[in-house]
Structure formats: C-alpha cells, structure tokens
C-alpha cells in the first residue's frame, strides 16, 4: 500500500523541529517548538478518519530498504491498537510544551529540542513494523529523557536520571538478544508482522518471554521493577513527568501486546498466573504506597504503578474485554495522569512545593484550578462518566471471566484509589488553609487553561462515547486473540471458561452506554 507518507512525516517533523529550535533566535524558540508540535498534531488528526475501522491489518504502511545486508528495513504502519496511542502522544506534546512556557529557566533551546526528539521517538515506537527499527526508537528516547531529568530536574536529579537510565537500559538489552534470536528462528527477518505469524518451540518461547518481560516490565513498570518510577517522576520537570507517565509507561504495555502475546502465545498463556499475580500486587501495593505519600508527584507516581497494574491484568486475560479495556486504559491513564501531573506542575510553579501539607485549601484562592484537580482525580479513580471507568470496567469484566478471586483483589485497588485520591483532594482542594502558608495565589491563566482543557474534554468524550475508539481497535485486538487462541482451537480444553460467555464489545457498551451519560449528568451536577 503506497500513499502519502503520513507516518514518516509524523516521525520526521518533530526531529526537524528539534534542529529548527537551534536555528531560530532566542525569543521564538518556544513558539517554534509549539508550532512544530501543533503541526504534528494536525497531521495526525486526519489519520483518525482515514483509518479503516473494519480492518485489523496495518494501515498507512510505508516500507523502504534500510540496511539490506542485515535485512533490516524501514517499515512503519498503524493498526487499531497503535492509532489511539499515537494520537494520545501528539495531543499531549503541545500541552507539554505549553506547561514548560515559564517553568524552564535554563537552556530553553535544548529543552525544547529534547521534547521534540522524544516525540519523534515515541511515535516511532508505536508505528515501527521492523523489530530493529522499533528497538532504535525504543532506545533513542533514553538519552533525551536522561537529560530532561538530569538537567532540568529537581534537587536529587542526578540520582534519579542515572537510575532511570540504567533500569531501562538493563531491561532493554535483553530485548535486543531476544530480537536477534527471533531473527534466526523466525526465518531471518526482522519484520514484526512476519515474526508474529511464526511458531516457536515452547522452550524458546519461555526464554524469549523472559527477555521481553525484562524490557517491558521495567518500562510499565510492573511490581518488583517499579522503584525507578517514583524517583524519576519526582525529580523530572513537569513536561518530563507527563511524558513519562503518559507515554513512556504505555510503551511497556504496548510491547506486551504487540510482541509478547502474538509472537509467544504459548509462553504468554503459561505465564498468565505470574503476570496476573504481579499485576494484582502492583494494583494493591501501588495504591497502598500512594496512600502513604505526602508528596503530590510521588502519590501520582505510585497511583500510576497501581493503574498500570490494571492494564497488564487486562492484557493477560486474552479476551476481547480485557485487552480492549487495557488499550482503553492505556489511553485513559495517559490523559488522566498527564492532567494530574500538569496540575501538580502548575501548583509547584506557584508555591514551589509539591508537599500536600504546603498546598492546602486551594479552592479559595484558585477555584478554577481546584475544579480541574477534582475532575482529573475523579477520572483517575474511575468515576462513571469519565474515561477511566470505561477502561477499568472492561478490564474487570475481562478478569471476571478468567477468575473471580483475581477480580475481587483487583477491585480493592479501585477502592484504595478512591481513598488516596479523595483524601488528597480533600486536603489540597477543600482543606482549611493556613493563612501564613498560602500567600495570594493567582488562579489558572489562559495558557494553563489551554493546557488542561483539551484533556478535560477528552476525559468526558471518551467517558461517554468510547465506541469510536473501541470500534477502531476491535479488529486488531481480535487478531491478537486469534493468535493466542487459534480459531480452530476455540473449543479446546483451554477455553471452557470463556466459551459460554463472550459478549461482544458492542453489547457491553450499549448496555452501559446510557448509564454513563446519566451518571455523568448527576456527577457534573453534584460537582462543586
């Protein structure tokens, strides 16, 4: 399929922008960077409508020879799973640039260049169809992120930056070995689609799964490998935190979905109990840790661990609800947590503290700010009518089909999420302010409004009409499931739990659709 090289343009434009910010004069750096990010967003938007929702195949595919002597090609493509993630990235980037407008004081050029290089690499990761190309993009974002944390970060930034780098690098080098092993086992090709069709022996799948796991679990981050996340989040500048939470973590779950499941279906099934256990531990442990935090960024960081636990839980259910819920939740977490980090960034600019104790009772001085904070928090805890409810609900339905006990444990996470988020909101928004500690704070200005309003809109749009996203990903997700459970084996012994109950997505959404809108109304009426 040849056509307009949409994806190459999407990847190359920010890279060109990164060079451009060095060419323009001091005053127009920010404007240039913003223009590039907005242009990238505008290029990505038509894809949403041009995308053929009835097909699970890769679309907008571009292919060129890159290093023929090592059979490495330049191949990009989009399917229903990567499309929402790419759009999420392009939507978030202009916001990241806007939020850094005044908060970055040194080396503005390099900062903007780093952000744009990150954008390039992130879009590349979600669209790459060649394994080496994927790995190049995957690794290429390490250095910009390292510099973002290390140069523009908080007081303990050196430690956080090197910890982030070493953790993720250690995970991904094993991925490289796995890629090379797959190359020789899968017919000397790095083509992701072709490798996803191959069959590999059980023992090989076992080892490859572990290697993939090392890379993706660190990135997600799953429970025992999560310790870099709170450090990195706390020290990173706001834009860095947003990118980390919203996009980088998704690359881990995207990796599981794009590679582990279709390429290693047997091992994925064999490892399901482990993955489910780790997910549930992450859900509950992350939530408990969030309860104990006094630092806003740390609180959100641990809530990310908990929320990403839901995503990995959904992925390893191997049913349509679980996986579609997981992809939904990847997007939702990106929007909601991105929004929360933007909120923290705004308050940090004003009070220079991220401690909850220093930011009590903001409703009085900053009513608009408090409204946004409440909306993002409610979305994060999965209030019906907001986006996260759709994702978490679908994941839990998927999990329910697999194991009721696991679902019960996962539900604990939702209760705890309500606890830590509402408690935080209670203090930060509605607490009794110490008159000495809160000098006159100016409320959210127009630039900051522009930064958060798109996310608020998305929260409700997705919360009320999730169907456009679901229909686009449906064929692609079915394709992944067909790899794990080949259609011929549908009635084999591995499936009994699922065969009697396979409601289609349409049924779920049509059942719950009306309820969403009603509850949204009540929710928005009840909001202060």
């Amino acid at each position, binding site marked *: 399929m040849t056509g307009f090289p949409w994806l190459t343009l999407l990847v190359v434009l920010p890279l060109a922008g990164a060079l451009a910010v060095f060419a323009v004069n001091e005053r127009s750096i920010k404007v240039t960077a913003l223009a590039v990010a907005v242009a990238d967003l505008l290029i990505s938007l038509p894809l949403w409508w041009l995308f053929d929702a009835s097909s699970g195949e890769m679309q907008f595919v571009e292919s060129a020879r890159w290093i023929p002597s090592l059979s490495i090609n330049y191949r990009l493509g989009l399917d229903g799973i990567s499309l929402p993630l790419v759009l999420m990235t392009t939507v978030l980037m202009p916001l990241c640039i806007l939020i850094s407008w005044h908060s970055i004081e040194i080396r503005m050029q390099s900062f903007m260049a780093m952000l744009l290089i990150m954008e390039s690499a992130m879009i590349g990761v979600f669209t790459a169809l060649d394994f080496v190309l994927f790995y190049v993009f995957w690794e*290429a974002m390490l250095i910009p992120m390292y510099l973002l944390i290390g140069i523009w970060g908080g007081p303990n930034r050196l430690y956080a*930056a090197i910890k982030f780098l*070493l953790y993720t*690098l250690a995970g991904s080098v094993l991925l490289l070995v796995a890629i090379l092993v797959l190359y020789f086992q899968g017919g000397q090709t790095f083509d992701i689609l072709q490798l996803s069709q191959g069959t590999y022996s059980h023992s090989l799948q076992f080892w490859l799964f572990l290697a993939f796991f090392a890379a993706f679990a660190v990135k997600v981050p799953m429970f025992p490998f999560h310790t870099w996340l709170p450090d990195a989040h706390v020290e990173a500048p706001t834009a860095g935190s947003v990118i980390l939470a919203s996009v980088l973590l998704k690359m881990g779950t995207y990796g599981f979905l794009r590679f582990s499941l279709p390429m290693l279906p047997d091992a994925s099934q064999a490892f399901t109990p482990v993955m489910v256990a780790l997910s549930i531990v992450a859900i509950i442990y992350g939530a408990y840790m969030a309860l104990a935090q006094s630092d806003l960024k740390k609180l959100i960081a641990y809530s990310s661990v908990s929320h990403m636990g839901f995503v990995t839980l959904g992925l390893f259910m191997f049913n349509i609800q679980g996986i579609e819920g997981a992809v939904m939740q990847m997007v939702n977490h990106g929007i909601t947590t991105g929004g929360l980090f933007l909120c923290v960034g705004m308050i940090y600019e004003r009070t220079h503290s991220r401690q909850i104790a220093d930011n009590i009772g903001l409703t009085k001085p900053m009513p608009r700010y408090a409204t946004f904070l409440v909306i993002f928090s409610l979305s994060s805890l999965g209030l019906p009518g907001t986006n996260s409810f759709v994702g978490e609900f679908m994941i839990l339905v998927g999990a329910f089909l697999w194991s009721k006990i696991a679902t019960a444990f996962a539900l604990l996470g939702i209760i705890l999420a309500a606890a830590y988020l509402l408690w935080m909101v209670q203090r930060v928004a509605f607490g009794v302010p110490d008159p000495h500690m809160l000098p006159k704070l100016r409320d959210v200005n127009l630039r900051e409004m522009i930064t958060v309003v798109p996310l608020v809109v998305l929260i409700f749009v997705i919360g009320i009409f999730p169907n456009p996203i679901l229909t686009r990903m449906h064929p692609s997700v079915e394709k992944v499931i067909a790899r794990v459970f080949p259609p011929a084996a549908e009635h084999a012994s591995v499936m009994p739990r699922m065969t009697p109950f396979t409601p289609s997505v349409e049924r779920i959404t049509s059942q719950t659709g009306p309820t969403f809108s009603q509850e949204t109304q009540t929710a928005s009426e009840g909001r202060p």
Partner: protein
Amino acid sequence: MMPFSSADLFLILPELLIVTAACIVFVLDPVLRTSNKDGLVWLSLGTLAVCMGLTASQIQAPATIFSGLVVIDAYGAFWKLLLYFVTGLTILLSHSYLKEERLYFGEYYGFVLLSLVGMMVMVSSSDLLTLYLGTELMSLSLYVMAGLKRSEPRSLEASAKYFVLGAFSSGILLYGISLLYGATGSTRLPEIAAAISGRNLDDPLLLFATILLTVGFGFKLAVVPFHMWTPDVYQGAPTSVTAFMAVAAKAASFGAFLRVFIEGLGGLKANWSAMFLILCLATLILGNVLALVQTNVKRMLAYSSIAHAGYALIGVVATGHMGNSSGIASVLLYLSLYAFMTFGAFAIVAMLRKGGIEGDNIEDFTGLAKRHPVAALLMLIFMVSLAGIPPTAGFIGKLYVFMSAVEAGLPWLAAVALIFAVISAYYYLRLVMVMYMREPSDLSSTSPRMVMSPSLSIVLACAVAGVVIFGIYPNPLVNFAIQAVSALK
C-alpha cells in the same frame, strides 16, 4: 635473493610512497624554519590522499606478490583505508595538539607515517615473518611517539613501559612463529593451513604455538590478561599519540591477527575459539568494571578501549564456534565504527585545557556544556555511541557483533556482553553528567577551556559525521566489510 618483478613494486606503491614521505619529513625537518613546518603536515596528508586512491583501486584486483610474502586483497584494503583515514585525523589533531603542548618535533609526523607503513605491512602480510617486521616497525615508532613529552616523567614512563612490555610480547610472538615453523615447516599462511589440515589437531607443538601467538597478539590487542600496559601508556603518552594507538594500532593488530588465525590457523578453530571465549569474557568484565572506578578520562578511555576489544572478540569467537564469516565481518565493522567514536573522544580530551595544561580528569569536564556547548554535545554523541545506544554507530557495531554471536548459537554470550554494556553506560554517561548537570565553579581559571582550531574542527567533524551517518545508514560500510571478509581464504 628472492625474485620479484616491477609489477610487485607497483602493487606496494602506497607503502613505498609513505616511506618516501616519512624520509622527506625526517630530512626536511632540521632544515626548514619553524614557520614553514606546516608544509610537512600538508605533505603527509597529501601522500595519504594519493595512497587512499591507489588502495581503493586495488580492491577489485587481488594479487599475491614477493613470492607469497605479501598479499594485496580487499581485506587488506579495508584495513588500509581505515588506517589512512585514522592517520590523517591523527596528523590533523597533532597539528593543533603539538602546538598547544609546545612540542615542536617535525620527526613526529615521520614516525606517524612509519608506524602507518608498519601497520599496512601487518594487514597485508601472508607470511608470519613479514608480519613480524610490520609489527616491529609499528611498535618501534610508537615507543618513540609515546615518550615525546620529554619533560614529563609520566610520558617517559609510558614509553619505557610500552617498550619493555612490547618487546617482551614481540619475543613471545616470535617464539610462537618459530614453533609453528617447526610444526608445519613454513611461515607462509597458506602452507601452514595446508600442513595443519592433514595433522592431528591435538599435537602439543601446534597448540603451544597457537597459545604463544595468542599471547603475542593479546598484548598488541590489549585483551585481558595482557592489558596491564594499556592504562599507563594511554595516560602518559601525548593524547594525540594515545588516540592513534587506541584506534590505528588496535585496528592493525586485529587485521593481522584475524588473517593469521583464519587463513593460517583456521584448521584449529575448535581449539582457539574456546581460548578466545575465555579471553573475551575476561576482557569484557575487567575492562568495563575497571573503567567504572577511573577518575582520569584517558585511563577511563583506555579501559573502555580494552572493553571494546572484548566486544570485537565476540565476532572472532562466533566465527570460531560455527565457522560463519559474519563473525569476522562484524569485527571489521565494529573496529571501523569504534575508530570514529574513540578518536573523536580523544580529540576532545586532547584539546580540553584547564589552567594551561591538559584537563584530563573527569572533574575537569565540569560545566563544559555551559562554556562550550558544541564540544559538550560532540562528547555526548561520542559517549552515547561508545555505550552502544542507538541511533549511533556504536549501536550498529554492537548489533552486528551480537547478530553473529546469536547466529553461532551463543545468545548467552551476547546477553552477558550486553549486560556489561549497561555497566559501561554508567561510566560513559558519568562524563555526560559532569558536563551537563554540574555547575562550574565561579573561578574562571578552574573552568575548562577548549582550544579550537580549523584542523581540530575538521577532525571532530569527520568523527561525528562517521558516528551519526554510519549510525543511521551503515549499509555501504557493512557491504564493504562483507566483501573484505570474502577475500579471506
């Protein structure tokens, strides 16, 4: 007297031209006035450019000359082109560096050229004695160059240490050659190979000869446990010489070493590949771990160059293990890409001044990003590339080496090597951290200063272009490496 024709002489014209240029440099140096000595630099560079053209034309026409003592083929041409390039960069770097260090020795360029001839003989010899001559010519020139900073004890120490250990290793190499001659009755690689193919491979004489050759080459390649001289010599020698040793001498030694072990001792693959596996692991582990604790950049880069020899050895082990030629091709690719990033890094160290003297401590890089953003950015690129992070040349080199290891059924070796690559990222990025994330103190005398000059700019531009362009589009170089290896018998 061995018969040879004038055609033979024409085929070694590059070597002859460079020797001639070296002699002219030696003769003219005392005659010329100081202000005219730049002419020697241009003469050397011009000779290299001519030789580059001559060697490039020899790629397609393999020939064995001087009754089988020397062979002209694509394999030799690959190394020679790399060596011309590195030598050219060395001369350009030295042009600025020697001025800054107030070392006015015209002979310097002569020794660089003579050393280059030695290297060229090494990579194109198909006879062990020719090879030995080349090795000695290279080493003797390097001994002199290492001690060029006569006023500095460290430089003299480096020279003496290098000389003693180098002479020792040459002796071992020669001993290995003589034993091999005893076992096979020849010093020519094809005849040695033929003699080995009909022999019992467990012959202790053969094995002992192989071990001695390995030790001899091990010193030149600076693989663990024969690496002891490297950090001291690299630190003490003038930095331009260090760069030359770390890149050109290593490349030439690898070139000769691979030809001997593939063309001559290919029949003993099963024996030597096990030995190299151990050397390779030891080199990877010790090189990377010891680099972690260095506070001097030159020492750190010395250990890093040891570690990189370990990565290159993976390709050798892979070929020895399964006989696939991609292992050797990956070594060629690796070392040529390594040349760009290592040379670039040394060039920056050479020109970084701190209070008038060379700033070669890691701390001396503090705040370089503020004062010289371009130099810091270039160093960042070299460090990232040395750590093997894409999209840089270092990644492509590692990718190909690990591909050959996995192809040979050694995925665990690739995994171990990659884990040590993560460790290496720590010390490479520590330099980045110092440059970018530490604030320089206010005292202007303690903050680093880069001495920029046109010739240095050319060097850095070439190095960074290689790192970036081959990191994104390595295809031509990969193809050339594969073509070069196919010329090995």
